[in-house]
């Protein structure tokens, strides 16, 4: 090890920086991909229990190796490209879908020190990247040359554009409360017990953000883009093998990302809920625990709610969420500047 370190110091600076960055990226990506694999397992098990079934229990003890078996199966399957499909765009769509889902993790602070990149405009970066995910869906739908896929893509595009606005406005509220676009500072602003979390002063925005997050990731009850009963599988109906697996991974990486962001901005990030011996527990544990808690809601929703109708989704996004966020931004601004209660919102 010492030999390796001395060897490293003799290399040029940029090689060292590059190597350390790659190591950090791997340190985030490998656990993330494992989490994606086991989220699929958790989903099948949980929904199984909610529907009084057992869920996967054949591969490995209690089915623990099921995601590994699924991955192996998908890896060895043939990727079928439909006739008259646009070959390049067809294969590019899954890549376009997973890239933003993974790249957004670069600015997520896992604890007060563990963050890959302290970007000052981190919140904007997240917002920009989550809005890019829709391209994978649209291109997949168009390039497949199939009407089911195309219908799914069109629905998804309309839905994501609508909910992104509400999501952006909800983040404006967070930005006003924290006074910073830096995710690390937003998290640091919520230190000191669960009463200091932004969840309370920004409660309506929290609800809007989380529900928009569910809609943005095309999850039930907003899964019209892939509604099985209407469109077979929606935008990825023509995909098979690894190309399909990449879409699947992107969806789950996005779900985990939204959970992590909700934790960061509303649930006090890595801070312990009460200032007792809880603070001795490492901050990473709190962050991951809260993220897992929010993640559970995604799975719970899927087992509980029936799918929204298309016009209901549009109404909810444009006529309910956007007015709620606009009103609450005004309320927050009013309290901060004109009343002595401004500190509630900080």
């Amino acid at each position: 090890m010492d030999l390796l370190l001395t060897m490293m110091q003799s290399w040029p600076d940029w090689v060292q920086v590059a190597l350390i960055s790659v190591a950090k990226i791997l340190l985030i990506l490998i656990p993330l991909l494992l989490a994606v694999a086991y989220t699929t397992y958790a989903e099948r098990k949980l929904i199984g229990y909610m529907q009084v079934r057992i869920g996967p229990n054949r591969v490995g003890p209690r089915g623990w190796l099921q995601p590994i078996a699924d991955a192996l199966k998908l890896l060895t399957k043939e990727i079928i490209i439909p006739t008259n499909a646009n070959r390049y765009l067809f294969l590019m769509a899954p890549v376009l879908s997973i890239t933003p889902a993974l790249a957004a993790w670069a600015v997520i602070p896992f604890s007060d020190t563990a963050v890959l990149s302290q970007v000052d405009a981190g919140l904007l970066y997240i917002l920009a990247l989550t809005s890019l995910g829709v391209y994978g869906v649209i291109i997949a739908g168009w390039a497949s040359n199939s009407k089911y896929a195309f219908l799914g893509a069109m629905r998804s595009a309309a839905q994501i554009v609508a909910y992104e606005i509400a999501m952006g406005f909800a983040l404006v509220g967070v930005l006003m409360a924290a006074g910073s676009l830096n995710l690390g500072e937003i998290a640091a602003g919520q230190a000191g017990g669960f009463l200091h979390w932004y969840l309370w002063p920004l409660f309506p925005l929290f609800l809007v953000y989380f529900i928009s997050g569910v809609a943005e990731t095309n999850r039930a009850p907003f899964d019209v883009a892939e509604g099985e009963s209407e469109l077979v599988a929606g935008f990825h109906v023509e995909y098979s093998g690894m190309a399909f697996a990449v879409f699947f991974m992107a969806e789950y990486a996005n779900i985990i990302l939204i959970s992590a962001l909700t934790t960061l901005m509303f649930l006090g990030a890595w801070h312990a809920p009460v200032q007792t011996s809880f603070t001795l527990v490492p901050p990473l544990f709190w962050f991951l625990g809260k993220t897992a808690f929010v993640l559970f809601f995604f799975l719970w929703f899927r087992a509980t709610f029936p799918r929204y109708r298309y016009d209901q989704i549009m109404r909810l996004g444009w006529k309910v969420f956007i007015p709620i966020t606009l009103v609450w931004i005004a309320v927050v601004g009013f309290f901060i500047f004109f009343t002595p209660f401004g500190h509630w919102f900080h």
Partner: protein
Amino acid sequence: MSFIQLAFYFFAAVTVFAAAMVITIRNPVKAALFLVLAFVSAACVWLTLEAEFLAIVLVLVYVGAVMVLFLFVVMMLDINLSRLREGFGEYLPIGGLVAVLMVLEMAIVLSTDDFSEQRLPRPEAHTEGYSNTKELGRLLYTFYVYPFEIAALILLVAIIAAIALTLRKRPETKYQNPAKQVSVRRDDRVRLVKMGAERKRDES
């Protein structure tokens, strides 16, 4: 050549290439996607100028929203390509003339003294704590507050006008009333009829 310079030339080259592909490629959907690439690489060029707020907003607004709707329309329209190509040779001379004129005009304007190194000194690199977002916000809401508010008002008027132009009640369109849908009762939709049991008529 420093890393920043290398990055600048790379992204500038990608921008120019993508912009050229937008107007030369045959498929309109691919053209729209190349426009997306041009926007993203332009945003990267802005990043090298330490304008991270503008760069990210460019991606957020143009790539994340405007181009999505653009693609939406282009995909739905199913444009006939051969019809678009028809007049190409006919318009080539006049189009080329306009292009040459524009390049000449730009060359003339950019070679004047106003754009010389003395008039426009090289911008200095900012210190560690500099935040482009904060600086822009401060300027917009203090120094440029009136132009900013006027621009916002014009946008608002444009939004209302656009909605007013498209919002027309057509008698044949059926609208949903969510309040009515929610408050509907079983008795409004289903009527239970009491009747005696039917008996099959005897054949014999």
